[in-house]
């Protein structure tokens, strides 16, 4: 059952990312990305991280992608960005991605073997996560709140229309 769920979610995730690469319309691109993020949330749930899965769906698929869709609507390109004229960028991108894959596989190869047998008891209940967040990681948590305030103020200041005096 878990295997079936994993392969279903993985295939939908990869297919929607491919759809995002192929589609021309920015709104469809954003919608494909939402599907990919929701599937990713399911995968996080399979990894016994229920809280992170909920956060993924609420913040990524909800908040961040709504922000993207708002900006797509505000920019509103009539005919979208045309297809790639230069063909060589496509090949270049594929070559770079292939090199990246080889590099990552070589890096992770040492770690792939011992991991596969790990079968641990349940971890990652929201209670434990919250306790860890407010004891060991208290300072990073507080710094994050300052970061969020700074980003909020920065975004408002950047986009605000200045009065012409």
């Amino acid at each position, binding site marked *: 059952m878990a295997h079936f769920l994993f392969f279903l979610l993985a295939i939908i995730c990869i297919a929607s990312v491919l759809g995002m690469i192929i589609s021309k319309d*920015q709104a469809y691109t954003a919608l494909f990305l939402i599907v990919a993020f929701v599937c990713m949330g399911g995968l996080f749930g399979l990894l016994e991280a229920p809280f992170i899965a909920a956060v993924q769906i609420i913040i990524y698929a909800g908040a961040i992608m709504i922000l993207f869709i708002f900006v797509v609507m*505000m920019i509103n390109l009539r005919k979208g960005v045309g297809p790639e004229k230069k063909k060589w960028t496509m090949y270049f991108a594929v070559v770079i991605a292939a090199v990246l894959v080889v590099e990552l596989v070589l890096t992770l190869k040492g770690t792939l073997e011992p991991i596969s047998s790990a079968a641990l008891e349940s971890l990652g209940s929201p209670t434990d996560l919250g306790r860890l967040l407010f004891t060991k990681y208290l300072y990073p948590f507080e710094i994050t709140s300052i970061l969020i305030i700074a980003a909020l103020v920065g975004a408002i200041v950047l986009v605000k229309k200045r009065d012409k005096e």
Partner: protein
Amino acid sequence: MIPLNYFLVLSIILFALGAIAFFVKRDLITQFMAIEIMFNAANLAFLAFAKSAGSLDGQIIVFFVITVAAAEAAVGLAIILLIFRQKKTIKSEDIKLMKG
């Protein structure tokens, strides 16, 4: 029980697809979305390793990554909106002010 290296392989594939999307697409918004895909691939690897190590620290890091990504999306989209207002384009190849 799913072997954890399945998750790592999926993470590698998604990261590579995000890189391809970044290079193939030509508007700033879609390139920004490609960066978000790469973030998510990294998060998946973090969670897989957290599970194999049996510790919660990886999940905390993923939590912080998601938070920082939200802040980054707000500021980045504001900058894209400013670029569009000033230059009337969001094609990345038209923005070459520093090219000389």
